[in-house]
């Protein structure tokens, strides 16, 4: 085509500016003040005490129920033949999944140079750690005999008893253990400069505590050099964990010979679902944080939430793709058992759960095609709750595949007991207790990182702070 000769040249190219990530035009000092202020204020807000009171009560009930569980045994749950795995495994997978968004935001989006992640990565990663703690409790208490819970670990012992290294449950121990360790290190590494900021602003005994936590950080040039290298390396190490942990969790089901569980798409399907649910939770928590700490709105902006909504829509459709592939291949396989499982899921006694799952995970995220909806805070909040409900139900649907097994005479419905519900509610109590403590005592936005993506951080920047006021 000869049209090219008449086209405009590079001289007419409009100037493109990177989008502004921080609103309200704060200076570096304002950033420090706004974020540190949340931690430093002496008058703890009333809502915080109320929320903590509720959460701690729920968490307390969690531990009391656990004591009862250890005293009486796993019979207090609804787990029975044929559904030998009930809500505890559902809760385990649910919580591990929640954690994945934190790692994706902190590691994968860092490697992809997605700078909008800086405002949410601190609390998303905190969420990861707390979610993994909640998750880790369930396999621990599910063993039935808590006093031999250490058998899960390959510890040399005089009985020469070893866990089965070919068991997916053994892989879980390694995967979740590695995940927790790497996430904690990554989170803490990012926190060091912020602890030092708090230390430098504090007086008296808090200064000692923050000073201890800051590990002698002096913001020196060589310290930053090492910090950046360490951060990049940890991001590189954490990235495969985003894929591996939930892949291993998926093998808990997929390595079995249960139809509806054993299908090759399970690992990537579980990973997509995990990121989906995690982003739902980050969205819920982010919107709540904006509500209770208005200055945070400058950092977790509507744009940030919009981008998260897009990730939710994408991963929701990936999950939808996996549902469709399972359905299609179940038919295509020509395997009657496989076909039965999927028909039973969609039209059997638990069809309501299946359609809750499909509605929440595939249909609701379609709202985000519209900019108006994905920038509306109430819509985002409600949708994020649905995402969490949907993903809990996804695991419920998968586990409840067991209710109609190969032997029709053993078919039975699963009846959750009050303890099943109590453990789920209790785990939320523990999660929110930890999260509230985090909000109160740890800078919830990574101050040093946010400053790094502000225009002033650019060496070519000339007093952007003042110039933009005229522009605006």
């Amino acid at each position: 085509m000869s049209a090219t000769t008449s086209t405009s040249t590079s001289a007419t190219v409009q100037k493109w500016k990177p989008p502004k990530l921080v609103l309200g035009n704060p200076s570096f000092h304002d950033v420090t003040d706004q974020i540190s202020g949340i931690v430093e204020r002496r008058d703890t807000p009333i809502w915080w005490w109320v929320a903590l009171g509720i959460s701690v009560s729920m968490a307390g009930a969690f531990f009391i129920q656990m004591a009862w569980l250890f005293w009486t045994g796993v019979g207090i749950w609804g787990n029975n033949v044929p559904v030998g795995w009930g809500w505890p495994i559902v809760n385990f997978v649910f919580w591990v999944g929640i954690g994945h968004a934190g790692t994706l935001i902190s590691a994968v989006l860092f490697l992809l140079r997605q700078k909008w992640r800086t405002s949410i990565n601190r609390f998303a990663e905190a969420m990861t750690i707390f979610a993994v703690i909640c998750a880790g409790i369930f396999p621990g208490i599910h063993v039935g005999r808590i006093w031999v819970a250490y058998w899960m670990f390959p510890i040399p012992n005089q009985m020469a008893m070893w866990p089965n290294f070919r068991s997916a449950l053994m892989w879980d121990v390694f995967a979740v253990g590695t995940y927790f360790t790497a996430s904690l290190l990554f989170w803490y590494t990012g926190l060091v400069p912020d602890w030092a900021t708090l230390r430098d602003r504090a007086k008296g005994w808090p200064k000692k505590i923050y000073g201890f936590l800051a590990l002698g950080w002096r913001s020196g040039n060589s310290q930053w050099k090492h910090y950046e290298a360490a951060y990049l390396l940890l991001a590189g190490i954490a990235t495969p964990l985003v894929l591996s942990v939930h892949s291993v969790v998926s093998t808990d089901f997929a390595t079995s010979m249960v139809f509806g569980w054993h299908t090759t798409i399970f690992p990537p399907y579980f990973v997509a679902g995990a990121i989906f649910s995690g982003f739902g939770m980050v969205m819920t928590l982010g919107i709540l944080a904006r509500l209770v700490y208005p200055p945070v709105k400058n950092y977790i902006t509507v744009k940030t939430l919009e981008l998260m909504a897009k990730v939710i829509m994408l991963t929701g459709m990936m999950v939808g793709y996996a549902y469709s592939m399972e359905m299609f291949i179940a038919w295509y396989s020509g395997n009657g058992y496989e076909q039965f499982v999927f028909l039973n899921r969609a039209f059997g006694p638990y069809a309501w759960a299946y359609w809750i799952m499909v509605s929440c995970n595939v249909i609701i995220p379609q709202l985000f095609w519209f900019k108006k909806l994905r920038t509306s805070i109430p819509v985002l909040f409600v949708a994020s709750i649905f995402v969490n409900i949907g993903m809990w139900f996804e695991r419920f649907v998968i586990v409840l595949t067991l209710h109609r097994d190969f032997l029709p005479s053993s078919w039975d419905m699963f009846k959750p007991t009050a303890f099943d519900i109590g453990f789920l509610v209790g785990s939320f109590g523990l999660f929110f207790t930890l999260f509230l403590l985090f909000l109160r005592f740890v800078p919830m936005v990574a101050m040093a990182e946010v400053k790094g993506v502000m225009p002033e951080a650019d060496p070519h920047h000339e007093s952007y702070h003042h110039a933009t006021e005229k522009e605006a």
Partner: protein
Amino acid sequence: MKFDSTTYTFTDKGNAGKIGLIVGMIGLAVSLVGLFVDAGQFYFSWLVAFAFWISIGLGGLFMTMVHHLTSAVWSVAVRRIGEAVMNALPWMTLLAIPLLFGLDKLFIWTDTDHVAADAILSMKVGYLNVPFFIVRTVIYFAVWALLAFLLKRNSLAQDKEWTEERARKFVVISGPGMIAFALTATFFCFDWIMSLQPLWYSTIYGLWFFAGGITTVMAFYAIVVLRLRSNNVLSETITVEHQHDIGKLLFAFLVFWGYMHLSQYLLIWYANLPEETAFYKDRWGAGWTTMSWILMIGGFVMPFILLMGRSAKRSDASLMTFAVWMFVVHWVDLYWNIMPVFHTETVVLSWMDLTTLVGMGGIFVWLFWMKFTNHPAVPITDPKLDASIKMVN
């Protein structure tokens, strides 16, 4: 080849396209001789080569849409490479025509007696039958052609003048386009590759095909960028920073591809169900064992270790070596997936494997080069172009 770096247009397109066309015509002509030598071998070789180049074309379509959906900045400078690959795709799909005459040689489910004798295959007749198969294939190709056409038209319109609506239109096309892409690419793979062994099935198979195509298209990007630079074309526009990013994506998708293979193998090995393990049993024994090892060690382990470092991606010689190697790996991957259906005992390499691959490759290079050089080599009016050129890792 001569290039005007103020307008980003080629004043002399050089010989790359011509050489591609000549090699392509000769390669395909020689391949057609094979039809009379060994028709079965011809169709299978043709299918491997066809799947190989189609997967790369699909990679170009995918990368173009991802670029728009993510509002990426870094890839503005290399956007036209992906677009040219995408524009070659609809023409490449025409190479499926010879295969339509050999469906009975390729797919056992076309044999009605065989199907009637097999209870499970009889159940699949509603899906695995020739008319529906052809209709589906036409739909896949039409969807790809439509997406490529819409994106290309908007891209060229944008060259005349950049407007907000045109920038938005890319996103409006790419959003639903990505859904259409995911489904068509998956079912293309199910139809043309998975149904070669119609009793075997794997839900991850579509993702495996997709992953291999993306890995290889990144290798193609790398080769194009390095070849352009060695001819001193766009060397100030597509910098070593872009090269590094292409290398990173190559590495990332390589790992993703390995992860697909592992997920499939591990789960099938573990459950040990005969209808699933048959796939791996066919690919283990005699020469196929060697090929499996080449795929594992050469396809994943070796490049994973060697390509991880920064300098491996920033050095021209090293990235070029890996890019070419990934082409070899992708071919081995497809050969390993398709050919055991025909050569059930051991690997039998045929001259037709080479001529079909090189022949279609020549046509692909010719199409690509024609599409790439007909228009400015970068989207000249894109406001992000300047930021993309100055991008640093």
